[in-house]
């Protein structure tokens, strides 16, 4: 099914409120240019993101899910991002094995001062999502 030209991927971002959310704020304040495909859900920590959220987002029609948290060591809750790292590692590998395009699940470390990096990450992710086609995984549902 040739998708229409003007198709824009829908990206869901889980941003940890202590670092990545602040980073995204900074990107906005300093007028950084980045595509508006991302919709943000603020989470207390990247460790809060449950694989169920990811697969549910894909089911609802998002083309990609970005989970972004603090750099290892900066976590406000000490170990939240370490746990998120392990969980994301096995979730990403397992969902690839099931048959979900790897580009659909993205993770990144963005600290509160890296407005620029956040913009880069979102641009890069959107570019990758544009290369692969629209999310057809659960297409036969209403």
């Amino acid at each position, binding site marked *: 099914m040739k998708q229409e030209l003007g198709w824009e991927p829908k990206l869901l971002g889980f941003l940890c409120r202590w670092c990545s959310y602040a980073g995204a704020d900074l990107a906005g304040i300093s007028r950084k240019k980045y595509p508006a495909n991302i919709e943000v859900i603020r989470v207390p920590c990247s460790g809060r993101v449950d694989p169920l959220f990811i697969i549910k987002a894909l089911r609802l029609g998002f083309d990609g899910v970005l989970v972004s948290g603090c750099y290892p060591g900066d976590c406000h809750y000490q170990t939240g991002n370490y746990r998120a790292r392990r969980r994301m590692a096995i979730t990403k590998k397992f969902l690839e*094995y099931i048959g979900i395009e790897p580009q659909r699940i993205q993770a990144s470390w963005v600290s509160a001062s890296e407005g620029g990096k956040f913009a880069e990450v979102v641009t890069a992710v959107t570019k990758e999502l544009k290369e692969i086609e629209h999310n057809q995984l659960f297409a036969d549902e209403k």
Partner: protein
Amino acid sequence: MKNNEIQQRLRQEAKTLLEQGQVEYIVGYETGSLKFTTTPLLTKNKDDTDRLIVNPFIVNNLSVYLTEIKGKVGIVAKGCDSRSVVSLIQDNKIAREDIVIMGIPCPGLIDLKKVELLLSKDRDELGNITRDEDRVVITIDGKGRDFPITEVLFDNCLECQIPTPQEYDILLGEPTTPISGNVSKRTNIKELEATPREERWNFWKEEFSRCIRCYACRNVCPACFCQRCFVEESEPQWILPTPKWQDNLIFQVIRNIHVAGRCTDCGECERVCPMNIPLRSLTRKMYEIVDELFQYKAGMDKNALPLLTAYEPTEAEDFIR
């Protein structure tokens, strides 16, 4: 030591455990009500210990009952079962002192579905199945036919690296070595990884449109011990209890992520599935992911932290931008 010697010793040990009051329950296997089947035996009465058996069909992972039984339990455990017991100890679901593990070095168990496929005959039409070392003799209406053992063993037994229980109080018989040089038939992880992404997704979509959500895979698994499973949540209702393929697929994916680092690849989920969905192709893959990424094998060390609660300063972060 031959099977019936191990069996005698097991019965003896179990009876003394009950008599001395070291345990209140004995959990073991007894002959099943159908041909070549065994069934779990849970008893407090020491006379029942005479019904305990050890043969190549003791397939159930008995540690699933440990989270249910209150009090001290003597459990018969093969290699994978004893690792499940350790995994439960790691998760503080049971205390090591409440459990007396009667370890059985496992020579590998015979998969009746493979035998039926091999002879295209049903289980109850077979005369007898006897095993000696690496051959198996199956008699059908009088005629005995002989096969190499690797033709009929479970896939997980063929790939099992740790057949002898690591954690035990009594070891019945000498430690055995893993079966070498074998290719598992039904679990096709390699083939699936080779097929293109689209086909893999459709393969699982096809398989899970058959699932009737009987939850046998979840209820037989010792690693699945939640009081209330996320499937039974209604606020928020993440997935529907109706067996739509989307909900079945998400249920199985999330279940595998939840048991990551707890699953000891005992193969029970695939064996009990009445719709014969190749579930081990999922659980074995998760087992390998966990081993490859974190060099973690479930239930090896009872003091180790469970997989997803521990972390290393630097590990597996190539995919993070």
